[in-house]
């Protein structure tokens, strides 16, 4: 199995986009080696601006650049992009519906040893309440490239959420369409909905469940906004049970999106695996996923519970 850093793919994709489109500029706040925007900086120094440790300034400046016709990629860690600069994202970027593409890395507890201050578990919720904002949480390296290209080629503000560790490449994800859920496994007994690194954990769980005679449907819901409520309602109607897995607070993110959709149009039982009213903490990524009940074993257990 191939393991890739989503950040590496992001950096390389940015360079390719930069070659094709001279109106792409990239901003970072002193984390260009971690977010990999440094690759773009090296190739296009005239179109890269390091803002130092000043995310608010970076985000509002991105709005200014975008108002002059630039497609602006802005990167820092997820907690600083979505948290520290939230008002700038809301008022300067999204209210004005500008072409600012926030690609935030180091989301979730899988950041590891840096601990709670650096582990964004609220970022999807913070971005999802802002009108005009599109949100993509790609599941692996190849999908990261597609997400970044989609953000570049579609109008308006985007939030693309990436992780820190290497992630396994998922086979047969099929075509990536912005705003369209990917059904990775067909099944009628229950539906497992996941995004980001949880897609692979869910896939492992699905294999075990199948061996136990249960036929789950697995949906990779990479685009959280615009939300593919059709795919979720179809799943609700056909499988009657939904299990949502995300490396994020259960409040305001993917789980809430699914619950809102089914509660309004076709109420079925929804169980959420995510972080419940806790901050993150230090540890190795795999230890933390265990500690926060975000492993394939946890998904399998929850799936059996909902059956």
């Amino acid at each position, binding site marked *: 199995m191939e393991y890739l850093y989503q950040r590496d793919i992001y950096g390389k994709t940015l360079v390719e986009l930069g070659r094709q489109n001279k109106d792409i*500029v990239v901003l970072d706040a002193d984390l260009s080696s971690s977010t990999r925007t440094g690759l773009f900086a090296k190739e296009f120094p*005239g*179109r890269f*601006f390091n*803002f*130092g440790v*000043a995310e*608010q*300034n*970076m*985000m*509002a*400046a*991105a*709005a*200014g*650049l*975008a*108002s*002059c*016709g*630039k497609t*602006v990629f802005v990167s820092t860690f997820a907690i600083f992009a979505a948290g520290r600069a939230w*008002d*700038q994202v*809301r*008022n*300067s970027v999204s*209210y*004005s*519906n*500008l072409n600012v593409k926030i690609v935030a890395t180091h989301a979730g507890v899988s950041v590891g040893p840096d601990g709670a201050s650096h582990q964004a578990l609220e970022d999807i919720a913070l971005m999802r309440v802002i009108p005009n904002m599109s949100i993509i949480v790609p599941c692996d390296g190849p999908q990261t490239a597609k997400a970044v290209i989609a953000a570049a080629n579609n109008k308006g503000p985007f939030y693309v959420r990436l992780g820190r560790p290497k992630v396994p490449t998922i086979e047969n994800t099929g075509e990536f369409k912005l705003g369209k859920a990917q059904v990775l496994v067909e099944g009628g007994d229950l539906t497992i909905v996941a995004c980001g690194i949880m897609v692979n954990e869910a896939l492992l769980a699905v294999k075990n469940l199948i061996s136990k005679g249960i036929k789950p449907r697995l949906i990779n819901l990479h685009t959280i906004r615009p939300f593919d409520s059709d795919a979720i309602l179809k799943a609700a109607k056909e499988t009657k049970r939904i299990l949502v897995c995300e490396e994020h607070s259960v409040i305001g993110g993917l789980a809430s999106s699914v619950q809102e959709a089914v509660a309004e149009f076709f109420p079925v039982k929804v169980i959420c695996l995510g972080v419940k009213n806790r901050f993150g903490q230090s540890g190795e990524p795999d230890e933390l996923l265990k500690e926060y009940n975000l492993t394939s074993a946890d998904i399998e257990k929850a799936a059996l519970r909902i059956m």
Partner: protein
Amino acid sequence: MIARAGSGHPGGSLSAADLITVLFFVVLRHNPKDPHWLERDRFHMSKGHCAPLWYSVLAESGYFPKEKLMTLRQLGSLLQGHPDRRTPGVEVASGSLGQGLSIALGMSLAGKVDKKPYRVYCLMGDGEIQEGNIWEAAMASAHYKCDNLCGILDYNGFQIDGKTCVIMDLEPIEDKWKAFGWHTIVINGHNINEILSAYDEARGTKGKPSIIIAHTIKGKGVSFMENVCDFHGRAPTKEEAIRALKELE
């Protein structure tokens, strides 16, 4: 306009009126018939609560019909309580204080990337520069040698809760901007000659951004509004508005 709307911020709109009138009708290279002209000079009002001033100069320039001014703050109006992009001539929304200098910095950097000769002007309030975001932008603008960027500080000495020197003192204000690497020009913000020469001096200053620190009078031109804190965020009554317009004529 503000009296008709029933709410708004007359004080700061009047203190900056001379600065912005001169900017729009003498200095700024723009084309109201083609608001998206690529070579245009950019203006951003970081102190978005003074939108009535911005709307007035935009209407007078021909961006939209003057009759629209009387729709300020009404449901469905082009003219929101604080500026946004539905108003022709407004490039980025404003209203949350402290973000505008960063927006102007972004416009300035875009001009440098594209090697276009346009200039960028940004009006800030004095109370507003208590926001940390302003100083992040100040540091970065000097770092990137944004000599196409001109800040305009409307130093009327008042904010909502009282005098700036009492609420959160800004002094020594010129030293602060100098220390951040800016060329500073201190003027009387109601003296047309000083305003004109300040814009000239800013344009001629190379290698660093310039800021015009303009000493102004809040509520300028209306005797009963001048230096009266209450008129920061309160609309005049109909009677007050009639008196004010008479005085301004």
